[in-house]
């Protein structure tokens, strides 16, 4: 690959990184919020390398004749694989990935990770209903099962998307991401006591923990008896 094309590849990749981090919050579909700064820095470095390359070309042509060849520039035509760096910008632009959702959640077989033993969670904050993640709710449910109950009598608010699981109950799902979307695993809580929302709808549920575990396809899920169900817009960060 010639240098002129390399410059365009660098600018396309760097510019796309800056686009998904600065022009909106698209990067949240792929990685954790804390990764924004490294992404911006990387985008800036790629753009600087590509921009410097073009500036060099510009400066040379501005002062050069057209009939004499330059031999001093290296013959680094690079591997053909370099062209593939166009692919991520192209996929981001043309497919506009919307983040993972129902499709990934349906592919999960096992219940998501249960907390390690020996990390007893503190009591929920005293006043009002507690907004907690599905991961935290699941962890507290497992600890309550083991004798350390921090949930009984507490009003909690959970946010996720819905997936029907029978006539009177449904699953609230949120994908938990450790590093990037490639390692996302669904956290699932069975909800009863409200109408069943359609698949994939984003909702906010308020209710209390039910000590009975729900069994769906031979997997035990923690359960919430809901009192309030609110339809919400998909959050900018679809993961937790």
């Amino acid at each position, binding site marked *: 690959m010639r240098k002129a094309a390399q410059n365009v590849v660098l600018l396309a990749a760097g510019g796309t990184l800056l686009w998904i981090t600065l022009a909106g919050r698209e990067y949240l579909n792929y990685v954790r919020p804390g990764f924004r700064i490294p992404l911006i820095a990387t985008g800036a470095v790629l753009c600087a390398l590509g921009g410097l390359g073009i500036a060099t070309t510009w400066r040379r042509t501005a002062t050069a004749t057209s*009939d004499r060849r330059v031999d001093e520039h290296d013959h680094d035509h690079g591997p053909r694989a370099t062209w593939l760096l166009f692919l991520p910008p192209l996929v981001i632009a043309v497919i506009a990935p919307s983040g993972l959702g129902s499709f990934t959640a349906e592919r999960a077989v096992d219940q998501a990770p249960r907390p390690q033993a020996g990390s007893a969670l503190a009591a929920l904050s005293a006043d009002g209903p507690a907004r907690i993640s599905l991961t935290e709710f699941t962890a507290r449910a497992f600890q309550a099962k083991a004798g350390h109950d921090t949930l009984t009598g507490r009003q909690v608010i959970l946010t996720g998307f819905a997936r029907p699981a029978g006539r009177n109950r449904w699953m609230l799902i949120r994908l938990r991401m450790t590093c990037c979307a490639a390692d996302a695993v669904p956290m699932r809580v069975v909800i009863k006591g409200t109408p069943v929302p359609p698949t994939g709808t984003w909702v906010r549920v308020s209710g209390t923990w039910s000590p009975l575990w729900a069994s769906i396809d031979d997997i035990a899920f923690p359960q919430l008896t809901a009192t309030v169900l609110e339809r919400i817009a998909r959050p900018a960060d679809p993961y937790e």
Partner: protein
Amino acid sequence: MPSAPRWRAVEAAWEEDAELPPAEWGRRPPMAAGPRALLGVVAVAGVLAAGRVLAAPHLREARVQGWATVFVAICVQALPFLAFGATVSAAISTLVPEAFWRRALPRRALLAVPVAGAVGAVLPGCECASVPVAGGLMARGITPAAALAFLLSSPAINPVVLVATAVAFRGHPEMVAARFAASLLVSVAAGWLWLRFGRTEWLRIPSRPRAAHGARWPGFAAALRHDLLHTGGLLVVGAAIAATLNVTVPPAWTVAVAGVPWLSVAVLAALAVVMSICSEADAFVATSLTQFSATAKLAFLVVGPMVDLKLIALQAGTFGPRFAARFIPMTFALAIVASALIGRVLL
């Protein structure tokens, strides 16, 4: 994407780039290479913007969206680490004097291998970063076997990874010790085996562009550019394969074999290859594989940073297919044996 003729025009323009001093002042060429390059950038940006506006609203199929998200996620997650690794590699090969490495590593290759393996415990960097760094070391004249020991150990046992492992396996410090011991064992053993049996013609030592003599910073920029473009393109291959498997292989397959103890080690080792997760993150995924034994999880943690789809692509592209065809199976076998041994002793 601009049409092929335009690209050829841009490339031709670059080739026709000329030197000082100008002979024909005032006579303008039809269109200079500089403006043409800029036109290329504008054209690409236009194609991308048009794709977003015209094509994106029609490509909403869940499987396509899932594939695209995982593919882009792996690329986006790895790029900053890759850039960091390429910077370290460029610094090693251009800014650090050659004499430093001669002094830092023992002269005898037999001793240089374990020392280089241990150095990996100090330098943070993910596995995508370690490939260009090891390539830079070889280009600097370091014994390939020592550079390979570093290549294997640095993503597996650096401080960031060990802390992540300790956090993920809270209450099980023996898992951190087992990971450290097994990974160091594999990297030193692989280095020594390569020293004893490896042949020079199998390994393509990466060359790097050199700037004018004495010009350090242009040389640094050229090396950085080269490494970024090279490893970046190969990363895309690995990410595409991993994303494809992510959305096509039925997850029930992996779960079905988890019940068989002897198989579970092999299965998690294979899963580590397929999933291609960064070593900073793999411990958190390992804890989520609750139905597998501790030794199987150890195999997942030892194999992952040393052999996975994106690394196969990166190593084959950087050191040549003949190297990859021998070194990767050897590392994979060593990692499984070391995990089984250390798992028996420590877990």
